[in-house]
Structure formats: C-alpha cells, structure tokens
C-alpha cells in the first residue's frame, strides 16, 4: 500500500513536471485549489485578528531595532554632512585666498605662506591667534597677515614653527589707511575706527579703506599698499575735536577665521 502511494507520488511528479501548464494534472490542481479556496479564505479570516496582533507586536520589535539602526545611520550621516560642510567652507575660503593671490590687489614684491590657525583668542582682551608657521617658513616679526577678504593683522611673535598674530581688531594694532574713493588718509585703530582724518578731508559711509603703504625716507609701512581693510559704516564730527569720527567694519570675518596668508617680502 505504501509502495503504491510512493509510486503514485512519483508518477504525479513526473506527469506534472512534463506536461504543459494546461495539462490534465494542472487543471485538476486548479480545480482543487478552487475547491480549497473557501477554506483558505475562512481560515484566513479566522486567523486575521491573531495575525494582526502578531504583526503589531512583531512590528514593534522590528520598529525598535530599526529605530536604533536609523539613529546610528543618522549620526553617521550627520557627521559626514558636517565634514562635507566644513570641507565646502574650507574650499570657499581657499578659493578666496587663491583669487586674492592671483588678483591685482595682491601686493607686488611679496610672496606668501599659507598657515592654519591653531589657537584662537582665549579672551576678548587679547585679539591674537597662533598660526602653524614660523621662522622655518620664512616668517618674521611684523609681517602682514591677510585672507581673501582683506587685512587680518600682523605677526607679533615668531617661533620656529609657530607665530603669534595680532589681529586687526586688537587694541594694539594700528594701520595707516587710505579711502580709495576720496584719497583721505588716516589710521585704522583696533579695526573699528578710522582716526586722524582731518575735518577738511571727505569720507563717506560705504567708502572702502585700504592700506596706505607709506614711505618716509628710509622708513616704510610694514603693510604694503592696497590691501583691503574694511568699509566705512558711519562718519561724524563736532566742533571740539580736531578730527572726524569714522567707524568702519573690517572685511575679514574674524569669527570664522581658520587659515591665513602671511605676506613675506621677496627681497628679504
């Protein structure tokens, strides 16, 4: 009996396997499936609430693990996005410097050394930064420091591999400057005021200031002429003071400064 059933099974497999999809066994199976259909539907409906409950709890477990995985992914993508944003801003910064180096406003007779800022001002009192280049790169004290936007400051101390730069906004920094439009001359102090501008000279809000780069006998300014400093934001005067009161906004953004160019005279 069992042998007959086994042989019958093998015969079924063989015939089913060899016949076309419209063959007799296929049609019998189709009819059988149709007959079984109501039972399957009934079983499906009966079991639906249990399956839904199972699916709900399984979904909760799955959602919990998926939540953990997605959070890890999110952290990873967030880090990558931050790195990309940083790389993009650095690229923009470098392009500005490159543009400045290749532009006509870059002072003639000067080379440059690019350096990252490795230390930011620790307090609001000393507006100084440490850059990752020193005398080994040819930097000397009082070398001017710039970015693509304009003047940043002056090197005030040099070691072999590092230099201390006093920023334009430091209280000790003074730069003889020139109003590009009116040729009015004065001294930019601490990056915020344009002093010693006589009342007879004309300065207007919006005027751009650049380094004057003066020469007097054997003496000369440490800053080459024509480096952008900032833009005049307000002009005023009174009867008591000898000079105008001129406020300016530096072109360089000292809050986001990450690297600079140190200008080095070629004839040194």
């Amino acid at each position, binding site marked *: *009996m069992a042998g007959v059933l*086994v042989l019958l*099974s093998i015969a079924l497999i*063989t015939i089913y*396997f060899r016949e076309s999809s419209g063959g007799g066994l296929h049609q019998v199976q189709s009819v*059988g*499936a149709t007959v*079984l259909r109501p039972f*399957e539907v009934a079983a499906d409906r009966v*079991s639906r609430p249990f399956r839904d409950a199972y699916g709900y709890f399984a979904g909760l477990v799955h959602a919990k693990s998926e939540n953990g995985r997605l959070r890890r992914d999110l952290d990873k993508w967030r880090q990558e996005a931050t790195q990309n944003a940083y790389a993009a801003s650095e690229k923009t910064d470098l392009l500005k410097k490159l543009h400045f180096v290749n532009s006509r406003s870059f002072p003639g007779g000067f080379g440059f050394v690019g350096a990252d800022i490795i230390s930011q001002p620790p307090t609001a009192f000393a507006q100084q930064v440490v850059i990752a280049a020193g005398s080994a790169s040819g930097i000397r004290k009082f070398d001017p420091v710039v970015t693509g936007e304009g003047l940043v400051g002056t090197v005030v101390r040099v070691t072999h591999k590092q230099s201390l730069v006093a920023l334009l906004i430091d209280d000790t920094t003074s730069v003889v400057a020139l109003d590009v439009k009116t040729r009015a001359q004065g001294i930019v102090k601490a990056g915020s005021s344009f002093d010693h501008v006589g009342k007879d000279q004309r300065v207007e809000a919006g005027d751009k200031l650049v380094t004057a780069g003066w020469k007097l006998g054997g003496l000369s300014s440490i800053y080459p002429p024509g480096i952008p400093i900032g833009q005049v934001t307000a002009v005023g005067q009174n009867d008591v003071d000898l000079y105008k009161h001129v406020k300016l906004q530096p072109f360089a953004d000292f809050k986001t400064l990450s690297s600079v160019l140190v200008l080095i005279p070629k004839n040194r």
Partner: protein
Amino acid sequence: MIADIAKGAAVLFVAAIVQVTLLSQIDVFYGAPDLVLVTLVAVALLRGTIFGAAAGFGAGLVVDTATLQTLGVSSLLLTIAGYWIGRYGETTGRDRSHAPFVSVAVVTLLYSLGALILHYMLGDPASASRVLLDAFPFELIFNLILTLPVYALCRRLFRPPPTGLEEVRLLG
C-alpha cells in the same frame, strides 16, 4: 476504522489549511513551523504504517494543491514520512513518552533533506545552506513546540488500537 479515516482526514485537512494560510507566513530566518508534518507524525505514531502513508499522501496532495506547487512532491515526502513513523510506532515507539519528540526531530531533518534533494532534482533553485543551516534549527524548535499539544490532541482523537488484552477476563 472509517471513523478513524474521517478524523484523520479532517485533522490533516485542517492542519494543511492552517499551514498554508497562517503558519507558512511565520518566518524566522526562513524557518517556519510545519503543522502538517507534526500532525502526520502524531497520527502515524498512533495508527501505524498504512494509515500514516495514506494520511501523508492525502495531506501532501492538499498542500501541493493549495499552494499550486508541483503536484506529488509533498505527497511523496509525507507518504514516506508517514510510513516510516508508522513503522516506528508499530514496533517500539508508540508507548514511549519521548517517541513523538524524537520522531518529529528526525522527520523534520529528513524531510528538509528530502525536500532539498527533490527540488534539486526538479531543477528548482534551492540553497542548501539556507535550508539546512538557517531555516532548519528554527523549524525544528517550532515543530518540537507544536509536538506536545498536537500529539495530545491526536491521542484524544485516536485512541490506542485494541491490543486484545481487553478480552481476557479472569473468571471464577
């Protein structure tokens, strides 16, 4: 006997329908409980070779028909399984408490192997590592969990066959 056939057909039919509609959707590393196999093992242990083989053949036909698979594949495997477990039940296994669990464990393994070989022979894509390494452990666990309640139910439905000892009465 006819009552047994009717009960066996009903039990295996329900098992097959539950299997194809509900249990086959459970998927833990490709492993799912096989209620038809466990029910067949229980029935075959209690009713022997012929009953087991016939029940396996019928249950396989229902499964293959309902799932529109190659007709005869499940029948062949379940017929052999039913016969073999029936033989075990007729000889040494029936009265042993561990028999259902041992039978289910062994048959689950052999059924997986047989199905794999058969599908290879028919040219179906089948991954041996998926069937034997991934799915089998979970399928075995599921089937062993099902064994106790299914065997208890079948034992209530299929009372042990008379052994002849009932007819002996001590007179006097």
